[in-house]
């Protein structure tokens, strides 16, 4: 398959990249890992006149710890996330999602920002990032804005990113010691799989270690965008931990999900699996919270 023709730009700083995006407007697309964009261009789904490669901008390749927050540069790859000690310590569910995305070859190219901007409903990084309450930083010549990731997604392939903006950074407040999170992906094979359902869960315990102080449950592949489950969260917060509670939270999450029937699975099956995976992800989160 031949790629459509385009002009190639390789800025060395975020400012330079923003200037190019501002000058070219909708004719240009930022290129990060290319694992979605290059494929879509080969299939002629997209044919931008200009590509603005972000891979040479060193500032976008770092994972930094700053005043209790973790800042992940846009071009950090899935493999780098999965192997990072900073991520393993305290943000394990994100490492789990990154470690199961695509294949080892894809993980060496695919970037964290690409996985968000592509906005596929079954993507592996949005659920764990939303479970940790991540925010995204969008930059353009007009300025900079920071949004909660959960408001960023608008539909399949659609986000709040404006045509001249670049997603430069993901910010996560480091969770307290008494918190934990888990991510589970259900598919029919172990690699190169698009999730049938995926679930990320986060819980924080109070000082006694018995009551749930905060909880987030995020469901993937069961709605046009990754979805928080308000009913499950409401059911969990303020309650004492016991096995039947997670069972009920799973049922509540299933009710909040809005899956469709397609060739990969029926809506009913997906809804049932939301209940199972939510319970399991909550157990993973609890186990991690208690280990602290």
């Amino acid at each position, binding site marked *: *398959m*031949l*790629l*459509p*023709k*385009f*002009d*190639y730009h*390789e800025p060395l700083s975020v400012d330079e990249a923003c200037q190019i995006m501002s000058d070219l407007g909708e004719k240009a697309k930022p*290129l990060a*890992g*290319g*694992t979605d964009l*290059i*494929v879509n261009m*080969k*299939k002629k789904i997209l044919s931008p006149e200009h*590509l603005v*490669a972000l*891979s040479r901008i060193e500032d976008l390749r770092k994972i930094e710890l700053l005043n209790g927050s973790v800042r992940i540069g846009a071009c950090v790859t899935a*493999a780098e996330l999965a192997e990072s000690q900073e991520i393993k310590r305290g943000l394990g569910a994100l490492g789990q999602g990154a470690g199961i995305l*695509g*294949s*080892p*070859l*894809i993980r*060496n*190219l695919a970037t964290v920002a690409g996985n968000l901007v592509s906005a596929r409903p079954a993507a592996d990084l949005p659920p764990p990032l939303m479970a940790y309450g991540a925010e995204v930083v969008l930059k353009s010549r007009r300025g900079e804005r920071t949004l909660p990731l959960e408001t960023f997604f608008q539909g399949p392939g659609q986000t709040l990113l404006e045509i001249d903006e670049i997603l430069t950074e993901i910010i996560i407040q480091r969770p307290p010691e008494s918190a934990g999170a888990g991510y589970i992906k259900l598919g029919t094979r*172990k*690699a*190169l799989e698009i999730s049938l359902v995926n679930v990320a869960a986060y819980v924080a315990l109070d000082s006694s270690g018995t009551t749930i102080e905060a909880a987030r449950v995020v469901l993937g592949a069961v709605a046009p965008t990754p979805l928080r489950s308000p009913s499950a969260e409401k059911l969990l917060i303020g309650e004492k931990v016991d096995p039947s509670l997670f069972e009920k939270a799973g049922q509540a999450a299933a009710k909040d999900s809005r899956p469709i029937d397609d060739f990969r699975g029926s809506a009913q099956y997906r809804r049932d699996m939301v209940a199972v995976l939510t319970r399991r992800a909550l157990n993973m989160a609890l186990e991690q919270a208690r280990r602290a």
Partner: protein
Amino acid sequence: MKRLITLTINGKEYEVAVPPNLTLLDLLRYELGLTGTKKGCDVGDCGACTVIMDGKPVNSCLVLAVQADGRDILTIEGVETEEGLHPIQQAFVEKGAVQCGFCTPGMILSAKSLLERNPRPTEEEIRTALSGNLCRCTGYQKIVEAVKDASEKLS
């Protein structure tokens, strides 16, 4: 407009003028004649086009040639030495891990990258490391055995 890029392939420096819409895979195969890197699906699913770029195995069908400017590339042609086949290649031959051979270059490069990071991998780790490389002939068993065999000979 073509761009002049410089890259190292199998230890040799190349300076080539490439159009932006040329992939690294097509540069290797059609401009430089390095046809050991195979073109299978061309969309990052099959792994036949695997090369090692700056120490990491990647799908060369998803990398633009211009993005490989300044990088160090290893293809299957760079794995054999004057002493003969690399121990991983030898193990593939001995264990019957090569049937039609189309996936073999990618398999060997993914395996090489694994054994450099993890000289004594478990079977599970081998299967995970090769999970981006599809084989339609062997059922994978002989490939996994070959990598295990090579890991024992190398360490």
